[in-house]
C-alpha cells in the first residue's frame, strides 16, 4: 500500500511538472528574427526553420534555391502609371485645381444623400465634419465612462485624420461609393476643398471660408491638420519600422501584460474588493440581430409574400431616409416619364449615385418594382 501511495505521489508530482512544462511549452519560437537579429516587429514571436520545420509545419527548403523568374513578366511604364495612383504625405497629388463652390456642387449631386448636409453624417454613413476641426481636436481625451452620456471624442476628417492626402486619395479611389474611380483630378481637388471648408480647416494660416477658395497641388501641402501629431508610434522616416518595433515590444504601450514566467500569474484572490459584476441593463442590450438568433434545428419555414416596406428598410433607407423618402413630395420631379422609367432607373442605377437595385443584386426586378411603388406612393 505504502509503495502504491508513493507511486501515486510521484505521479501527481510529475503531472504538476508536466503542466508547468506545458506552460513553458517549447514551440520553437524565438523573440528575434533570424534574418536580421531584431525583435519581432509586432511584439510577438518568430518561428525559425529548424530541422526542416517552422513551428509544427514542414517546409521544402529547396524552394528558396531557385529563381522563379519564369512566373512573371516586367510591367510596362503605362501599366504602372495606370495602377500606381496612391497619394500620400510624401507622394503628392497630381497637378490640378478645384474650388469650394465646385466641390459643393459635386457634393450636393453625388454625396449628400449618404453623408448628409455639410457632411453631418445623417443616416448611418460616416460624418465628414462636426464643426470646427481645431475645437473638436480638443475632445481627443474625452471618455464616455463612467458616464455613458458624456461627450466622446469626435473622430472626423478635420479633427482626427493626420493627413489630407488620405482624403484626396480616398475620394478618388473609393468615392462616390456606388460609382468609384469616376471623379477627375480637378473634381477631387474641388471635393477636398469642400471638405476643408466644412471642417473650417486652415491652409497656409488662413481658414477656408470662401466659396472662391481654390485648392491646387501647391497649397495642398500647406493644409494644417490639427491631429497631425496625434498618433503613436511615429512611423515616418528611416526609423519608422524601428519605432514600431520598439513600441510594440513594450506591452505597457497598448495595455498588454507580458510575463517572464507564467508561474507568477495570480491564481487565488486576484480581485480588488471593489470588483463588481456589471451586467447589461434591462432592455439596454443590443438585440437587433438579422436573422434573429435561434439554435433550433427544424426545417426552414417557407418565405411569406415579399414586403416592399421591409425591402425598403433593409436596402434603401440609408440613403433614402431623408432624400426621396417614401411618399415625399419631391418624387413629383422624378415621375414625369412614368413609373416604369423610375423602376428601370432603380434596376440599372443612375449617374447621380443610385447603385443598381440599391446595391442588393439579390432583389428581383419585380421586388424592386414593388419597393419603388411603395416609395413613390408612401404605402
Amino acid at each position: 500500500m505504502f509503495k502504491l501511495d508513493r507511486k501515486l505521489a510521484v505521479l501527481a508530482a510529475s503531472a504538476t511538472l508536466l503542466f508547468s512544462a506545458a506552460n513553458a511549452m517549447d514551440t520553437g519560437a524565438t523573440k528575434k528574427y533570424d534574418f536580421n537579429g531584431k525583435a519581432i516587429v509586432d511584439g510577438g514571436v518568430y518561428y525559425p526553420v529548424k530541422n526542416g520545420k517552422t513551428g509544427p509545419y514542414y517546409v521544402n527548403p529547396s524552394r528558396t534555391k531557385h529563381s522563379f523568374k519564369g512566373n512573371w513578366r516586367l510591367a510596362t511604364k503605362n501599366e504602372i502609371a495606370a495602377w500606381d495612383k496612391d497619394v500620400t504625405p510624401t507622394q503628392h497629388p497630381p497637378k490640378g485645381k478645384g474650388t469650394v463652390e465646385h466641390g459643393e456642387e459635386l457634393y450636393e449631386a453625388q454625396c449628400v444623400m449618404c453623408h448628409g448636409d455639410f457632411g453631418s453624417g445623417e443616416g448611418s454613413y460616416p460624418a465628414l465634419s462636426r464643426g470646427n476641426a481645431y475645437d473638436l481636436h480638443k475632445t481627443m481625451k474625452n471618455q464616455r465612462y463612467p458616464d455613458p452620456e458624456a461627450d466622446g471624442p469626435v473622430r472626423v476628417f478635420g479633427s482626427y485624420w493626420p493627413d489630407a492626402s488620405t482624403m484626396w486619395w480616398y475620394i478618388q479611389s473609393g468615392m462616390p461609393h456606388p460609382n468609384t474611380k469616376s471623379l477627375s483630378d480637378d473634381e477631387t481637388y474641388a471635393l477636398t476643398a469642400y471638405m476643408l471648408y466644412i471642417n473650417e480647416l486652415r491652409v497656409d494660416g488662413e481658414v477656408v471660408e470662401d466659396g472662391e477658395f481654390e485648392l491646387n497641388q501647391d497649397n495642398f501641402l500647406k493644409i494644417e491638420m490639427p491631429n497631425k501629431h496625434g498618433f503613436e508610434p511615429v512611423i515616418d522616416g528611416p526609423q519608422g519600422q524601428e519605432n514600431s518595433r520598439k513600441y510594440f515590444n513594450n506591452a505597457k504601450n497598448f495595455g498588454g501584460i507580458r510575463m517572464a514566467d507564467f508561474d507568477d500569474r495570480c491564481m487565488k484572490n486576484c480581485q480588488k474588493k471593489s470588483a463588481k459584476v456589471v451586467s447589461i441593463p434591462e432592455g439596454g442590450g443590443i438585440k437587433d440581430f438579422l436573422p434573429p438568433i435561434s439554435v433550433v434545428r427544424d426545417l426552414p419555414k417557407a418565405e411569406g409574400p415579399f414586403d416592399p416596406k421591409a425591402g425598403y428598410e433593409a436596402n434603401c433607407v440609408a440613403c433614402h431616409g431623408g432624400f426621396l423618402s417614401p411618399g415625399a413630395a419631391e418624387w413629383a420631379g422624378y415621375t414625369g416619364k412614368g413609373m416604369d422609367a423610375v423602376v428601370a432607373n432603380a434596376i440599372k442605377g443612375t449617374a447621380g449615385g443610385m447603385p443598381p437595385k440599391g446595391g442588393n443584386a439579390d432583389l428581383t426586378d419585380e421586388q424592386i418594382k414593388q419597393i419603388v411603388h411603395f416609395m413613390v406612393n408612401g404605402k
Partner: protein
Amino acid sequence: MSKNMNENSEVVETASNEIDSEQTSRRDFFKKAAASVTALAGTSLLASGDTGKDDPLIMHHVKWGQKLGDPVTKNRYGIPSPYEHNNVRRNTSLLASGNWQASIAVTPLHESEGIITPNGLFFSRSHGGTAHVDPNEYRLMINGLVDKEIVMTLNELKRYPSVTRTHFIECPANGGQEWRGPQFNSLQFAKGFMASAEWTGVYIKDIIKDLGVSPKALWMLAEGSDNSEMGRTVPMDKVLDDAMLVWGQNGEALRPEQGYPVRLLLPGWEGNLCVKWVKRLEFAAEPFYAKEETSKYTALKKTGKAIQHFYANEVNSTVTHPSPEKPWKGQGLKKGDIVEIQGIAWSGMGTITGVDISLDGGKNYVPANLKGLVLPKSWTRWSYIHVYDGKSLLLTSRAMDDAGYIQPTVDEETSVTGVEAVYHRNAVETWEVTEEGEVNHVQIRS
C-alpha cells in the same frame, strides 16, 4: 409489428407525423395517426426522461430508414442539412456603415466545431461590398522599390511552391462594442468578428527574392481591386517573416467574401490588413497613410494619442459552451451530472500555451486543458470538466501564449487604453450562469 405499433399508437403518432407527410399514405395506421398531430416536444421529453417507456424512435423504423435516399448526383456541391438553417452568419444595423456593403456579417461561434470554420460561415467584412473577380482577368502587380517591377496572372502566381497554414483571421473590432460595458448578450456578436481556416498560397518572400528589393524599402502597400480599393501598409519584417498571398481556403478556392481569387494573409494580424481581391503590392521607404489606417483601425488612448499601425491581435479567449446562445438551461442537467466547459483561445503573437478558467469571475483560477492541435497564430480549443451543481457561476477564461502575454482584466486594459479605443480589446470575458442555467454576458469591473 402491427401489434407493437398499436400498443404504442399514441406515441407513434407524435413521432411520425411532424415532418414527413408522404409516409402517412403508406399504411392505414399512419393515415389514422395523421389526423391527430401533436407537438414534437412531447417526444423529446420522453426520449430524455426516465419514464420506463420505450422510445418509439427506437422501437419503430425511422422514416428515412425505409426509403431510398438522394442519388449521388444531387447537390454537385454539397450543402448542409436543412435542419442546420439557423447556423448562419448574422449582421446588425449597428455595425453597418449605411448599407450592407460596408458592413460585417459575423460567425456563429456557438455552433463552431474544432479550429476550422466552414467557408460559408467565415465572417465577412468589406468596405465596398463583395467583389466578383473573373480569375481569367486577374492581374497582380508588384512595383515600387524593386529592380524588377512585375505583373503576374493567377496561373503564374499559382506556379510558385505552395505553403498551407491554419490561421484565424480576426477583425480588430472584435469585442469592440464592449469597452464601456457589456452590450451584446450573444457569443456570435460579442466575439464572432473572426473565423479560422486552412489557407494555401505562397510566401511573399519567395516571390520578392528574385526582384531585387531595395534596402530602402521599409514598407509594403497592399491594395485591393474592389470598389473601395482597400489598402494597408505592411512593415517589411512581416513580409520577410510569414506574409502570404493565398488562393486556397479549406481545400478549395477562396470564397468571394474572402477575396477570391487572391488575398493577402498576414498570420495573426488585423483582418483588414489581410487585403482581399489584392491586385498590387508596392514597396516604399515611407508608409502610405491609406484611408483605413487613419480614419479607422487606429486605437485612441485616454492620453488623447491614438495607436496607429496596430498589427497583431493579442492573446484572447472565450467560452463557447456554455454561452448565451448555448445555455445549460433546457439541457436537462441534474446536480452531479458532468458537463464540459469549453472554448477557444487564440493569439496573433504566437502559440497558445495555456488557458485558466475561473468559476467566480476571475477571483480564483484553475488551469484548463488544451485539446486538439495547438498551432501558431491559430484557434486552440480548451476544455474543463465541471460537476454541475445548479449554482450560479461567473465563467471567465484567461489565455496565455508563447510570447509571454496573458489576457488582462477589464480594469488592467482600460487603465491604459481608456474606453474609446474601439479596436484591439482582449480583456477577459465573463459569462454569468444563473441557477436556472441561463447565460448572460457580464463584466467584472472595479
